[in-house]
């Protein structure tokens, strides 16, 4: 299995551990990723707030770069995934926009013919690799580890091509395949606060608090995420939450880190040491911590 790979800015910065764990899990499962050359920022939510057609053209450059590889394009970050998928759909359905994007790409010596399929690693793991293949690689089942499956928004909304928009289940199934106990978590697709945690902390941090508090109430040892911004918000603001809302703490990890642990990889190789709220104690309490 081979895929084109679009890491996005966060996976090279605050979300480094996501990339580390993703690559390591994919390697174990025999999934090859080919990072596209000289990719640029997808534009996220901010770019669309400033200019419409330029935002689509910006994202389309990545599609144009990926297209010659003739492979599905894996985008692990929720915002990147959504923006690339949205761009693809919008230039297909809106001729006026398509014309502008074409003009932009042409100015950079590029073209995009509409043939890139954008995939999220969750989709790839469940639908291409398959739960059986995942189960087959499990060396240390996550026995007893209670996980709150947190999907966030943009992987499933608004285009969820592979799971339900409000009540997705695929990560639940995947983590169960790794032996985890998935708790019922009604906030699984609620907003983490996005960039409001930084720009409007009185709002953003509160949203993150709701999520963490509910995970705690539901008995979760860890929260599993599949987006670097969700991870950042839930992991990095817990001290602020303690100061402004309530002292409540649940470590947040990437779903790929949990898979990696089940596959027998070390915490370090999965980037777990990069957490601000360490998951080590929670893992140790279920005898899942690794040395180093």
């Amino acid at each position, binding site marked *: 299995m081979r895929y084109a790979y679009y890491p996005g800015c966060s996976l090279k910065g605050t979300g480094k551990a996501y990339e580390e764990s993703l690559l390591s899990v994919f390697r174990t499962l025999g999934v090859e990723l080919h990072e596209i050359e000289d990719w640029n920022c997808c534009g996220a939510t901010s770019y669309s707030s400033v200019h419409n057609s330029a935002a689509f053209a910006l994202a389309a450059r990545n599609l144009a770069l990926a297209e010659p590889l003739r492979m599905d394009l894996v985008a692990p970050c929720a915002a990147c995934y959504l923006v690339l998928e949205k761009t693809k759909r919008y230039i297909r359905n809106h001729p006026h926009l398509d014309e502008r994007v074409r003009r932009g790409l042409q100015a950079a010596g590029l073209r995009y013919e509409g043939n890139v399929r954008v995939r999220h690693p969750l989709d790839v793991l469940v639908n291409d690799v398959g739960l059986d293949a995942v189960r087959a690689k499990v060396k240390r089942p996550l026995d007893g580890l209670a996980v709150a499956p947190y999907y966030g928004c943009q992987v499933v909304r608004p285009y969820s091509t592979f799971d*339900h928009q*409000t*009540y997705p289940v695929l990560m639940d199934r995947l983590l169960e395949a790794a032996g985890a106990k998935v708790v019922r978590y*009604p*906030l699984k697709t609620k907003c983490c606060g996005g960039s409001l945690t930084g720009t409007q902390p009185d709002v953003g941090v509160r949203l993150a608090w*709701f999520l963490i508090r*509910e995970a705690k109430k539901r008995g979760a040892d860890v929260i599993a995420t599949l987006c670097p911004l969700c991870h950042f918000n839930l992991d990095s603001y817990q001290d602020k939450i303690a100061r402004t809302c309530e002292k409540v703490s649940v470590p947040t990890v990437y779903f790929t880190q949990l898979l990696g642990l089940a596959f027998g990889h070390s915490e370090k190789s999965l980037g777990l040491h990069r957490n601000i709220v360490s998951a080590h104690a929670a893992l140790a309490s279920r005898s899942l911590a690794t040395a180093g």
Partner: protein
Amino acid sequence: MEHRADEPRIGVYVCHCGSNIAGKVRVAAVAEAAALLPGVVVSRDSKYMCSDPGQEMIQQDIREHALNRIVVASCSPLLHEETFRKATERGGLNPYFFQMVNLREHDSWVHEDADAATEKAVDLVRAAVRRVRFHRALEKTEVPVHPDVLVVGGGIAGIHAALTLADAGKRVYLVEREPTIGGHMARFDKTFPTLDCAACILTPKMSSVKAHPNITLWTYSDVTSVSGYVGNFKVVVRRRPRYVREDLCVGCLECIDACVYKEGRVPDEFNAGLGKRKPIYIPFPQATPQVVVVDPASCIRVKTGKCKSTCVEACDRDAIVFDQKEEIREIEVGAIVVATGFETFDAARIPQYGLGVYDDVYTSLQVERMVNSSGPTLGEVRLKNGSTPRSIGIIHCVGSRDQKTNRWCSRVCCMYSLKLAHLLKEHTGAQVYNFYIDIRAAGKGYEEFFDRLREEGVNFIRGRVAEITDWTMTPEEEGRLVIRVEDTLAGFVRRIPVDMVVLAVGLEPAHDAQEVRRVLNIGCSNEGFFMERHPKLAPVETFTEGIFLAGCCQGPKDIPDTVAQAGAAAAAALALVDAGRVELEPNTACVVDEACSGCKTCVALCPYTAISHDRERGKAAVNGALCKGCGTCVAACPSGAIRQNLFEDDQIFGEIEGVLVHA
């Protein structure tokens, strides 16, 4: 004046239709252009051609100008073709020397540009003028009408239609799919806005059906095929085995007590799944007929043949017979009333509302049963944990007015939600919240009922609920269901904790409506409800003559409207069968014997089985009474041996040339 009889003398009449046509098409210019066409003797425009003066004008012109062909350019032939044919006939011509042009639906209503619309109108009129010269005189045929009537569906609509027809002295077959008649209404507790008990007003009618000497009631039965034509339908009814002889069972119910299952095992359909029933059961105490039924899906005896069959032993009338087979009955009727009803929306399709996820989320139909004193809880409103709810949320428009599920307003949910609000408050004293988008209380006494509910202290919050969740934020929410909604009149979002949620599910076509439609050969609208012939002027007729509609199979409606429509459908059916004879349109196909090669292509293609193959002569023959004039055979015949009245080659080519050739 003397005129050669074969010389066409055409009168053209262009209608303004008020401003419907004249608002876009310059009708005077169209009439002027038509006046110049070959054969046109008179060409006029008029404000309303369908009015008496308009029709009179045609008659007078026929006499004064010796017209022998008439063209009216106005609205759809569906509306007024008959009107103008009659006017033509009154003027002294054969009514088929008439051609209609649809300037309204085909032109003025669908185009923006007046010049282009006018040009198109001229083209269409020219086509009709060129066509009508080839029209021939045709005669209508008359056939006798069978006096019996079939009513399909035994809900309140079917019951009312059947009783009306039977009281008028007609023999009626009432066919019901379920083991009992009564339909949805039998499951309701009270009815809005008068709060009279549904059973009290329905069950006497059910008994009348059973007792009526003119009604043959077949429950647990399906109509499997309908053939024939208006006045002369042949219907096949399949009577499924209920493993109980209707002629012997008296409804003592001892067999149910004797069943090897000591407790109910199967979710009780009649109680919307709230209770459990046994494999041998009677849907509810007043079921009609009072005959038990064996559910083959759960009865051990039926499934495996191995059971002590204690039920059989218990029956001292030997009414339980496990070797009962399905029966096929063939009947002939003159008219059919379709009253196959509706289904409620499956609220699990909106997972945000938590049906099946949270214990105390119910559908409105379940709550009807819950508040009913003969329901599974004997009228007690209790939560799953046994306690009485202190606050209840009723959510309107579940599966209605929603692009993702059903787009239409289901019309009854507002009012039944108000009724349930009243009943729940009465039964529990709880705080009741109604969450609505708009309250639709347009019936007689409905707005007054809404007033009454407000006075009773029911809370009304204008906002569509986004979500029901057990995610709690405050101590008062703990352990309860939280409704998240914008109070759109106050302008902010609210979280309202409740103990019980009622989903006011909408009405949708029955799951097999498409199948029923095909069996009956009637049409349905986009959403799947059966289509009436005209939304205002033929609300119970269908496009298939002799078949009439009643109740929710045609669209959501409440009980008063359903009964009114059932009465109207019965009257329409009565008018047909009572006349004893019916005229058939002559727009049928006929085989030109000399050209027919006897290949039988047409026989298989005819959707109305109107064509047979005469083995002796080796030719096909069309039964004019069965033929609906669809033209399939005409187009399919490889030898061009089939012609169709009103659609002859010269007529069609004349029309095509008229559109294409700018004269």
